[in-house]
């Protein structure tokens, strides 16, 4: 940082006396006291929370990489097994086909149809198994913990939820909390899970509609347990992705 000027000791020659006096007045009302203990504690808690989130995110990312690798391995085995099964089916069916085709012309049409159906249905089954494998694969991905789908909840679904306005965040958060029926022990609303992650320290999670000058956005409020002073921290996360955008201290419930 470059050298600072000293507003009192080194008067700026460019300033007229009136501006110089205002400058001195301002210098005299600067805030010298250290940060209040409760604010310092709040910031320390915020840093600890961020560090925890980052640690969880890192471990989740690592397990996700493992899971993807595992899934790829499973997929390779599934493909190999299906391919082997197809070879077996063709191996068994082909000699029969030859026999049927060679058996007589009168039944050839039906047999041919039958024989043609066989590989067809076999082929269908093969694709179906493959498809199921894919389906199961993606299904397990969607349902696995810590890997929420990224699609935000539909706006229509949120019409019943409380409004939180940017300009009256603290008041609206308190109102949303009092209106919410979510209990700390209740399972998380699927819409929240679909939107983003919830910190482990959350005491209560409330789905809301966040209103800013640029429009309305689905999101959720995360209330942390009240501190000693009976106040609790509330953070607003918006969808998609569960991005934290606002936080404030509010009186405990």
């Amino acid at each position, binding site marked *: *940082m*470059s*050298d*600072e*000027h*000293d*507003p*009192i*000791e080194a*008067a700026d020659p460019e*300033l007229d*006396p*009136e*501006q110089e*006096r*205002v*400058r*001195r*007045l*301002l*210098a*005299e*009302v*600067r*805030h*010298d*006291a*250290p*940060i*209040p203990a409760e*604010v*310092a504690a*709040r*910031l*320390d808690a*915020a*840093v*600890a929370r*961020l*560090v925890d989130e*980052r*640690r969880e995110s*890192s471990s989740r990312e690592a397990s996700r990489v493992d899971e993807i690798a595992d899934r790829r391995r499973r997929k390779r085995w599934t493909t190999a097994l299906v391919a082997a099964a197809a070879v077996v089916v063709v191996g068994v069916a082909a000699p029969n086909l030859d026999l049927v085709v060679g058996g007589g012309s009168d039944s050839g049409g039906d047999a041919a149809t039958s024989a043609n159906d066989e590989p067809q249905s076999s082929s269908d089954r093969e694709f179906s198994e493959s498809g199921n494998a894919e389906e199961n694969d993606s299904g397990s991905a969607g349902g696995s913990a810590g890997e929420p789908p990224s699609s935000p909840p539909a706006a229509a679904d949120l019409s019943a939820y409380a409004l939180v306005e*940017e*300009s009256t965040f603290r008041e609206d958060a308190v109102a949303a909390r009092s209106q919410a029926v979510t209990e700390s022990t209740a399972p998380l609303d699927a819409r929240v899970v679909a939107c983003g992650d919830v910190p482990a320290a959350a005491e209560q999670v409330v789905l809301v509609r966040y209103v*800013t*000058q640029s429009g309305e956005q689905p999101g959720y409020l995360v209330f942390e347990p009240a501190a000693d002073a009976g106040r609790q921290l509330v953070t607003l996360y918006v969808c998609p992705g569960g991005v*934290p955008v*606002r*936080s*404030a*201290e509010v009186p405990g419930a």
Partner: protein
Amino acid sequence: MTPSHSADTSDLELLRAHVDGDPEAFGVLFGRHRDRLWAVALRTMGNPEDAADGLQDGLIAAFRRAGSFRGDAAVTTWLHRVVVNACLDRLRAAKVRAADPLPDDLDERESRGSLRTATAASLDPAELSVADERRRTVLAALQTLPEEQRAALVLVDMEGYAMADVAQMLDCAVGTVKSRCSRGRARLAGLLTDRLAALDADPTGGTTSGPGDAGLGNRPAGRPVPSQDPPRGPPASP
């Protein structure tokens, strides 16, 4: 301070350690500057509650965006920039129209500002009362300025940062900072002259010593003002 982060560890080293995954580095870094950042947030926001919210927003933003720090400025300048921007975002969001004329509810506004500033212990109660009243008046007037002017004055005139640093903090040209400061001071001068003159004329506290010397109402123009309380200036980076 942890054993792995001694006082000799520079701000930049701490920031890089944080980006590399060190779980303690950011706390140590922010702890070094938080008193100063608190002062800036408090004077920019005007009350402790909003200042705490703004400072926390800035902390979260700095934690998450540390990887985007390019090293063009000092780390402390960058931290100030993030915190000031967080405060300004909050002010804008709350649609604070600080440029309105000095409001009728000035007394109520005054009570919202923190008054914990250095005051000469030798002043008698009457002098302290006048000094407090003057301080309230100045802070309340400051809150009526547009937020960009206020932020510039807080950083330049209160905290003593160099114009070039403030320009980086506010992401604007040095000339813009000068212009904002000049316009802000001119507006404050207009707002404060009558009120401080009235305060100085108060027979119960009509002293001209101590902080009263800084008033606009009863002092000849151009007279030097002795300082009992010089600004800190930016902290020296380890």
